[in-house]
């Protein structure tokens, strides 16, 4: 296996491993080969690398055509360009005919876009894909989980969106922990005072918050929601029933993503008071990754504060 560092290299490592065993796997690029850190794939499999140039609509359409012929194309580029520039192509020609297309969106969230500014920071992608029928949505938490998520995507017969970042995401998992499709994973089980549901590359902040809360006498259960759709309703409901309060943590607009998915599940199965950590429905700006997350309300302290407020109600 190729050694990798960061979620983009993890994607390429997984794709290389998939391609070695399965000659249906293709890479479709919208001048995103370098951004995806996928040059090695193009060198190794030149006839399985389709370069569409700076044209995301075409990249997604080409992928639909490839998939209709039995191939398994992975379209890799910036998450917002897939889900917004090529939104209709993704919806009507991948999701509606249930094409076996894998959409790998990098620069998810402020962490992913950081110094590039709002044009390259995507806080809407999960909300968009979640409203489209047939698309499975995976939100791995670090590079090792991305490796597993990409392999899991290959096993799913149908369109899958995998949210990647930019390589600045901290490692929270041991390399040996597999990605588990369709199930939540309890990462910290300190107690039942509050549940923290987190998804994606600020998982380290959620871990920090759970530890800080413990030090302050509040026992949290921290849950990694790495399959955002279909969400593990039963698993979520069990945690909600046990903890009776929930904080959601995501590097995404608080509308449409993890917070909404948990709230929908809660409303259906186990109504629970909640707090929503994420981007508060506004645009951010350029900045260093960690400073940006802090400035836009996603610090460990902000999670702690929200949990304490919930617990004091």
């Amino acid at each position, binding site marked *: 296996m190729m050694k990798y560092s960061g979620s983009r290299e993890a994607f390429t490592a997984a794709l290389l491993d998939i391609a070695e065993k399965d000659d249906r796997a293709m890479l479709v690029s919208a001048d995103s080969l370098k951004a995806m850190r996928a040059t090695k794939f193009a060198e190794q499999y030149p006839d399985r690398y389709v370069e569409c140039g700076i044209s995301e609509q075409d990249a997604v359409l080409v992928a639909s055509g490839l998939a209709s012929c*039995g191939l398994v194309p992975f379209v890799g580029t910036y998450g917002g360009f897939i889900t917004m520039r090529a939104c209709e192509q993704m919806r*009507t*020609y991948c999701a509606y005919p249930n094409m076996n297309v894998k959409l790998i969106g990098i620069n998810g969230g402020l962490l992913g876009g950081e110094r590039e500014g709002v044009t390259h920071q995507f806080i809407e992608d999960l909300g968009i894909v979640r409203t489209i029928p047939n698309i499975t949505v995976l939100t791995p938490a670090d590079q090792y989980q991305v490796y597993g998520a990409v392999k899991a995507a290959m096993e799913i017969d149908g369109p899958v969106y995998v949210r990647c970042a930019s390589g600045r995401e901290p490692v929270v998992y041991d390399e040996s922990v597999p990605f588990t499709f369709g199930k939540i994973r309890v990462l910290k089980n300190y107690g039942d005072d509050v549940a923290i549901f987190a998804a994606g590359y600020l998982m380290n902040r959620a871990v920090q918050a759970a530890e800080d809360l413990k030090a302050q006498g509040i026992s949290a259960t921290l849950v990694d929601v790495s399959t955002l759709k279909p969400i593990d309703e039963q698993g979520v409901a069990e945690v909600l029933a046990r903890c009776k309060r929930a904080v959601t943590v995501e590097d995404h607009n608080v509308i449409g993503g993890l917070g909404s998915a948990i709230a929908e599940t809660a409303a259906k199965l186990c109504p629970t008071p909640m707090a929503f950590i994420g981007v508060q429905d506004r645009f951010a700006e350029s900045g260093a990754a960690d400073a940006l997350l802090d400035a836009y309300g996603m610090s460990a302290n902000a999670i702690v504060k929200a949990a304490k407020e919930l617990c004091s109600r």
Partner: protein
Amino acid sequence: MENARTERLQKIANQMRLEVVRMVHNAGDGHPGPCMSAMDILTCLYFDQMNIRPEDPKWPDRDRFILSKGHACPALYTALAYKGYFSKAEFDGLRSLGSILQGHPTLQKTPGLDMTSGSLGNGLGIATGMAIAGKYCKQDYYTYVIMGDGELQEGSVWEAAMCAKKNSLDHLIAFIDHNNWQSGGSVTECSGLLPVREKWEAFGWFTQEIDGHNIDEILGAIEAAKAQKGQPAAIVARTVKGKGLDYMEDDNSWHKRVPDDAQLERAIELLGGDQK
């Protein structure tokens, strides 16, 4: 011999025109005008050129077809039923709940379709993917697309045009049904679309311009496109919206309109009698 081939195809095209008038009349909804301009091309593809097996719709080596101007689907549905993919009895269900004949072509509902279509400007990109797949899998099939001229206003068409050129997709053949009309009016009222042929030439495609209602010219253009190597092929077909029906020809009110009983009768009269 050549005449017999031409006459046979002309007869099928006219039968299918009548079928479309009846289908839209009976369903009470649909786009008859855009069907008529594309009908002769569609007939040449399905009844002369395409290598397909209606008894095995997913045969991997089959030629592919995408009706990018998906609103002309009554014409395509007629061709598919005539080829035997499904019964003509389905025609009465056009656009109604539970029907296999959706308002626009839908891959998983209608046997014989190779892709969903209907939102304009997307067929060529998908066809490009199909043609790349054929190359990669070392298959010899052709991928055909019919686009409207109006939909060339979509930028995604030109994204695909550049992609197909770069990949030298000589098994990709795209027709432009150049009837000069679109939903809102003439193509020149709506955009700076013209000239069409020169655009495809400039994008590096093997480009021909023909009379899109002349069977021999259509067949000749397809054969010339197949004979050349290294370029995707564009066939700009000058057509008449509503072709074949005197009350419909070049009248854009027939973009989406339902023929009444008298107009159905007139169609029967014009198109060689009721072939039901």
